[in-house]
């Protein structure tokens, strides 16, 4: 999802030093605001006519604390990611992957899936671009799984809201699932289940673009543009997610949570996947829910399985991919990725 400079009006022509200074000032302001979150949320809650230790008081405190926190984190993460990703593009990634041995291709594709800017709206042209350049189908899948699954937004929020341990576990297992699911799909020889017209395509890429030279200030502009676009788009999901998280935090009794999502109930992991796949939100919306679930004593494996299936497997994405994949291939894809998610869930419920 690279976005070039646009609509920034007079800012666009501002000299570079204004950009550097602006970014530093903004970082300091965000950081200072981040330190005031707890006093702020307690102050707001105390203004309302509810007892702080009531169910409603707990829910409101959670909401008022999490909304500014998630929005601040999201802004920072999206900006940094936007700047870093300006060094990558689908074209460069394809060139890197096309020349690699297949076995190296899987982990590399998973890694590049995280770093390459691309929006789900262009996943079809991207898919065709990869496959027609001779990149194996399995490697292409590794790329497509890793992108949403181990996205920086999800990781960064997990780090800020739940802690670095769980963020690291998520990173490692998400990356492994993308690598191994791609490898398994590659071994199955599924090319015949592509839509007919995709198989007949063997025209390589025709467009050769001169690489644009970007200055550091240009990259900062790209980062800012990303913040405007992404935060402007996902804030509603963030509010809904935090609302659900707040309701869980305030009202759901711990013993009920233990019964449904506790480690004792073996069926909780598959149930979490079944519930999670059709649910559609983005990482920014689901992580406040994860925070509340873990806080109430939900088992880590079950929660990881829920989060991964919400983020990595989504119905709208399947509908987009339907243009290039047959139902059969989509079903195999979902089954393989779900198996990886289930294995992760069971593993952590058994370990902890």
């Amino acid at each position: 999802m690279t976005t070039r400079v646009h609509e920034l009006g007079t800012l666009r022509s501002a000299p570079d030093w204004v950009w550097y200074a602006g970014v530093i000032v903004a970082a300091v302001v965000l950081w200072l605001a981040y330190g005031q979150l707890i006093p702020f949320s307690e102050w707001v809650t105390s203004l309302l006519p509810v007892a702080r230790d009531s169910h409603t008081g707990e829910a409101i405190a959670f909401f008022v604390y999490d909304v500014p926190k998630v929005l601040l984190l999201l802004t920072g993460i999206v900006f940094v990611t936007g700047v870093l990703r300006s060094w990558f593009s689908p074209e460069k990634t394809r060139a890197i992957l096309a020349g690699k041995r297949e076995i190296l291709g899987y982990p590399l594709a998973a890694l590049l899936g995280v770093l390459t800017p691309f929006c789900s709206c262009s996943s079809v042209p991207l898919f065709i671009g990869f496959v027609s350049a001779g990149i194996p189908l399995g490697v292409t899948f590794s790329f497509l799984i890793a992108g949403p699954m181990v996205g920086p937004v999800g990781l960064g929020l997990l780090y800020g809201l739940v802690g670095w341990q769980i963020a690291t576990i998520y990173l490692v297992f998400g990356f492994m699932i993308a690598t191994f699911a791609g490898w398994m799909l590659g071994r199955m020889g599924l090319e015949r289940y592509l839509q007919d017209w995709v198989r007949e395509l063997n025209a390589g890429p025709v467009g050769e673009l001169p690489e644009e030279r970007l200055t550091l200030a240009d990259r900062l502009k790209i980062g800012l543009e990303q913040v405007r676009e992404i935060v402007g788009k996902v804030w509603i999901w963030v509010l809904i997610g935090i609302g659900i998280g707040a309701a869980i935090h305030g009202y759901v009794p711990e013993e009920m949570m233990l019964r449904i999502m506790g480690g004792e109930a073996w069926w909780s992991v598959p149930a979490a996947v079944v519930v999670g796949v059709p649910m559609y939100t983005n990482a920014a919306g689901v992580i406040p829910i994860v925070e509340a679930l873990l806080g109430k004593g939900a088992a880590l494996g079950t929660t990881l399985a829920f989060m991964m299936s919400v983020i990595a497997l989504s119905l709208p994405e399947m509908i987009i991919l339907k243009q290039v994949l047959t139902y059969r291939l989509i079903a195999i894809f979902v089954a393989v990725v779900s198996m990886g998610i289930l294995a992760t869930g069971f593993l952590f419920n058994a370990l902890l």
Partner: protein
Amino acid sequence: MKNVKVYGPGCKRCETTEVMVRDAAANLGIEVDVEKVTDPRSIAMAGVMSTPGISVDGKLVHVGGLPDAAKLEGWLTA
């Protein structure tokens, strides 16, 4: 008259790109025929992997996001 194609499946940025192309042409006072390509197959066949992309008279000039207004005018006058 220049033939400009805007490649994109119909996301918001693709529409913005089309408007930007028309604005740039109006600014320069040149006539352009803007065609939107939304079919994923045609997008991919044109060599575009990240949308929106732009081609001018059959030559791909830009992919992967909103174009820079100054560069856009450059492509249209080239």
